[in-house]
């Protein structure tokens, strides 16, 4: 047992899981953080990313790591469209408040059903898969398949890039300002419309990239998105809604909990451990691990 826990194998598994969770949750958190929109169709963007990658590979023989950029751009454009056509008016009319959260939840829920069923019509509900980088690599006593390693590296790099962007880039700083205090950001001259548009683009794009990475190891199907939506919500609520770094930390914490928790108990305890911890944490810290208690404004 000690051998198992101390081996790098479990650590790699935990990191690989955590990185996927972090990347999927990132976009959801960004869209929520800047606009208070609850995108329950987020997992469906993961699905779309998976399909774009699959078709690029199956029809054109394009390596998933190459098509990644195109996938991200396509999803970002979809984000721009969704923002322009569906959400700008809603946000403009009523600003941010509990009503926007509730309305966005319903609107995204409807979108999710439409997207899933359109995908089923166009791609057929049959699951699809392709083999890519499936050779096993050995590092000391740790064995890992190339596709999982690639997924881990790309996801981690992208998370890091977004964090740096938010820290150092003017637009990133403006996004943070919007997350911290919307009205104050407007007062100091942040172009709210432009920042919201960018958040949609980045949020949708990163979700699709997560889908591209997932498709290297798992089959894609029109209804694969929902579990990712749930996982992303757990991550961002645990990390503190709208706290990007908090969400990433929570994602890796969940990855560790899922692999080591299961190793110490039994695989059957997986969901109980994850959701039990989630509920317990919310009872103890309703604002999440890294969130601040709500203040009256």
């Amino acid at each position: 047992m000690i051998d198992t826990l101390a081996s790098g194998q479990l650590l790699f598994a935990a990191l690989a899981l955590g990185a996927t969770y972090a990347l999927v949750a990132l976009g959801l958190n960004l869209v929520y953080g800047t606009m208070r929109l609850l995108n329950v169709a987020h997992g469906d963007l993961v699905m779309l990313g998976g399909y774009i990658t699959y078709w690029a590979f199956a029809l054109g023989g394009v390596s998933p790591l190459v098509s990644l950029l195109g996938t991200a751009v396509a999803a970002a454009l979809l984000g721009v469209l969704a923002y322009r056509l569906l959400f700008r008016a809603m946000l403009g009319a009523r600003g941010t408040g509990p009503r926007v959260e509730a309305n966005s939840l319903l609107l995204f829920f409807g979108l999710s059903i439409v997207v899933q069923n359109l995908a089923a019509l166009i791609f057929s509900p049959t699951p699809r898969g392709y083999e890519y980088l499936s050779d096993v690599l050995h590092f000391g006593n740790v064995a890992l398949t190339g596709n999982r390693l690639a997924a881990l590296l790309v996801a981690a790099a992208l998370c890091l890039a977004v964090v740096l962007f938010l820290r150092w880039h003017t637009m990133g700083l403006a996004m943070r300002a919007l997350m911290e205090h919307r009205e104050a950001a407007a007062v100091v001259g942040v172009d709210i419309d432009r920042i919201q548009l960018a958040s949609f683009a980045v949020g949708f794009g990163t979700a699709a990239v997560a889908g591209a990475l997932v498709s290297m190891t798992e089959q894609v199907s029109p209804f694969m998105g929902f579990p990712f939506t749930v996982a992303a919500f757990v991550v961002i609520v645990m990390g503190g809604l709208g706290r990007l770094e908090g969400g990433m930390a929570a994602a890796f914490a969940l990855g560790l909990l899922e692999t080591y928790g299961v190793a110490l108990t039994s695989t059957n305890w997986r969901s109980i451990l994850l959701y039990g911890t989630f509920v317990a944490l919310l009872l103890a810290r309703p604002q999440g691990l890294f969130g601040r208690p709500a203040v009256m404004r």
Partner: protein
Amino acid sequence: MSIRRSIFNTVIASAFALALSLDTSLAQGAKPVRIGFSIAKTGIFASAAPSQLNAYELWREQVNARGGLEIGKEKRPVEFVQYDDQSNPGQAAKIYEKLITQDKVDLLLAPWGTPTHIAVAPVLERLKFPMVGNTAASSKLRELKPGYIWFTTAAIPDRIGKELAAMLKENGVKSVALLTNVLPFSKEIKGFLEPALKSAAIAISVNEEYPPDVKDMTALLTKVKQANPDAVLALSYPSDSPLYVRQAKELGIGAKFQFVLIGPTIDFFPKLLGSAANGIVTVGEWSPARNARAKAFYDTYVAKFKEKPDYLDSSLSFMSCEILEQAVKTAGLDRSKLRTAIAQGRFETINGAVKFKGVENTVTKTGFLQIQDGEVQQVWPASVSTAKYRPKTSW
């Protein structure tokens, strides 16, 4: 705007014209036979149901190409009446009631999945409408009152448990790791497999269950690797079967007998896993090498849908169509006569002869398939096998 509108109008008009022309072409021939069913187009079974629907569509196309369904001396084209049951068995029961009482269909085909068949059975019983079931497998099916529903499958958990233990014993397996997804079909098999393994003197060195939403099996498979059993029996579902294979390959699990319950015969499985899928044993009682009908079914299916049929669900679904076709040929559309014809007849299918006793197909043997060099072969039982079982020596 006006140009757009006129394009729109043209499209609508031509759609109507097309619909009318289709309508008249049907009206010129004999009156179509309307066959109703519900299908899981959305919801949790949606990714599994195409293997069934494709088989139905292929059958309809072939029957219509032959001039229609033979009813006595007459041939009538087949027309489907189908509704999405959203993978909801309760909804399916309502749909079958509607199909029978309001749509007044002539015949019925089955919905997808065990719970759906069980939900529909009382409706058939009450409205006295016979239906040949297909994609359902549970020992509980035998508890259904026989008379209006029959099942083409031989993959019933008690029979699987017994046969798998026998196959393991014959291949010198002394110890197994048993990994079970906690869903009904796999749990039921586990319940029958454990005593069968015990009486075959095969030790269960690891016996673990896992939830359907499992995302990582590293810890579980590390235990399996340490126990080093002769066989791993993964009682898994399509969503987690690839996860098992991927991570077993990653950790280099050396068991020569690798059994994976549901997934290996679905088209995406070998595409996703490549050589790692080679040598995997799975449940299944049909292969294209069975007979000439089976080969023809396989070839036309692949040509039409550009993917392989599911060895279990597609073949079972097609068999139920063949049985219905042969029963209607002799009994016509009279439900009482049709019921007797199905219950007492002997049918030729893509999986050889079929005859029912109660609700169960007692001719087809419960068996196992193995992926060998990318081809799926029947390796158990010997009487119907198309190739010999080969130990899995590499991932």
